[in-house]
């Protein structure tokens, strides 16, 4: 299990990095490498050129402008996990972080790397979907912003164009009377979840559900927004019955989950129901608090 030969570059600036990606069309950016390097050790991945983003200090760091959180793409999971700003502005993200693999992986793995990789079982894409986050993409020519829901386009597929890099993630704070919760079920702590749910609920003055976003992971080709579940809640008093109905919709109508060794499709639907119900209940409690 030794990786194949590749050419290695470690640019000092984003511009150099983008230039290298243009120059070598078969180049792959190396961020934390915690998904790429195992694939290379198994010789499932054999990129001819690796562009190591490790020296791009400008892409690290967490900052807040007013109600908006900005996280550099090369910020490690551990830094996000430890960040008080993240805990304050995006508690859902903070809650999800410990579920990502193990500390040693989180010390290397990066937010941008995980989002660009877009593994259907990964926590972060679903969380970004639920938070309505924006990704900042940069190419040699231009910088653009893409909403999370438009960024994830399928199985390991994203809106990233060739020669384009994720440089940052922007997350706006949630309005008042909002509550969030993250639930996942994995065989062992740190494994790819069999199903996961990221839920955001915002209530109006009357305590009715004004807005909700429920994103499920590991139930499709990418993170899945549970639209019917949300519809079931909209303008409703989020009482146990309503929540149960929404959870039922999530498990039955919103997803077409695949089967694998660890979970049949039917079991995934069941987990989706249960976890959605649990996540919504917690999110609503928090929104009321």
């Amino acid at each position, binding site marked *: 299990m*030794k990786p194949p030969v590749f*050419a*290695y570059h*470690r640019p000092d600036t984003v511009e150099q990095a983008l230039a290298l990606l243009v120059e070598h069309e078969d180049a792959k950016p190396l961020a934390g*490498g915690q998904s790429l390097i195992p694939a290379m050790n198994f010789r499932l991945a054999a990129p001819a050129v690796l562009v190591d983003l490790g020296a791009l200090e400008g892409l690290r760091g967490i900052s807040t402008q007013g109600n908006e959180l900005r996280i550099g793409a090369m910020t490690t999971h*551990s830094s996000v996990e430890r960040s008080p700003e993240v805990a304050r502005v995006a508690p859902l993200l903070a809650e999800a972080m410990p579920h990502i693999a193990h*500390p*040693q992986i989180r010390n290397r793995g990066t937010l941008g790397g995980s989002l660009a990789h877009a593994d259907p079982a990964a926590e972060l894409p679903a969380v970004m979907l639920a938070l309505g986050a924006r990704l900042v993409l940069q190419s040699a020519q231009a910088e653009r912003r893409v909403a999370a829901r438009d960024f994830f386009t399928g199985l390991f597929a994203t809106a990233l164009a060739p020669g384009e890099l994720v440089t940052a993630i922007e997350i706006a704070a949630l309005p008042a009377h909002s509550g969030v919760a993250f639930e996942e079920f994995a065989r062992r702590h740190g494994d790819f979840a069999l199903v996961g749910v990221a839920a955001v609920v915002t209530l109006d003055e009357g305590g009715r559900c004004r807005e909700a976003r429920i994103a499920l992971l590991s139930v499709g080709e990418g993170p899945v927004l549970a639209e019917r579940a949300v519809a079931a809640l909209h303008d409703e008093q989020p009482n146990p019955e309503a929540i149960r109905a929404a959870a039922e919709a999530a498990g039955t109508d919103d997803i077409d989950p695949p089967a694998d060794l660890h979970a049949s499709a039917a079991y995934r639907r069941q987990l989706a129901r249960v976890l959605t119900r649990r996540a919504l209940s917690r999110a609503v409690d928090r929104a009321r608090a």
Partner: protein
Amino acid sequence: MNGQHTIRVTVNGIRYERSAEPRLLLSDFLRQELGLTGTHVGCEHGVCGACTVLLDGSAVRSCLLFAVQADGHAVTTVEGLSSGDQLHPLQQAFHEAHALQCGFCTPGILLSLIPWLEEHPNPDETEIRAALSGNLCRCTGYANIVTAVQRFAAGAGSR
């Protein structure tokens, strides 16, 4: 850039300069180029944790890093924990609690715990187990490892 890259790295306080293929894993670099065979390789896909070392003070899988990525950084391996037979307090706690059997996974466990214990000086059992969950041990069933960490934490207060 296909060929050899120069790697300047400080390992256990000693500066090394070697040239290596970019694909050389840090785990193999430490074991083969530097002869630091205390870092063990168990799965080479980042699950077992046996190859855990410290990179600039934080625990990482050395099988999921290319040696070139460590260029200009500092690495600590199990060989850097003790001075001769003078064991690091956590090593001593492992000995006293019989927290190792075959000992193959032990270096990775020690290096995963040391930075974590600096941030969590008074962990409870569940926290300790969560911190250990990225390291597989087939021999011990973990119980004595948990005990060792508890003893270390208790002792650390008095140190």
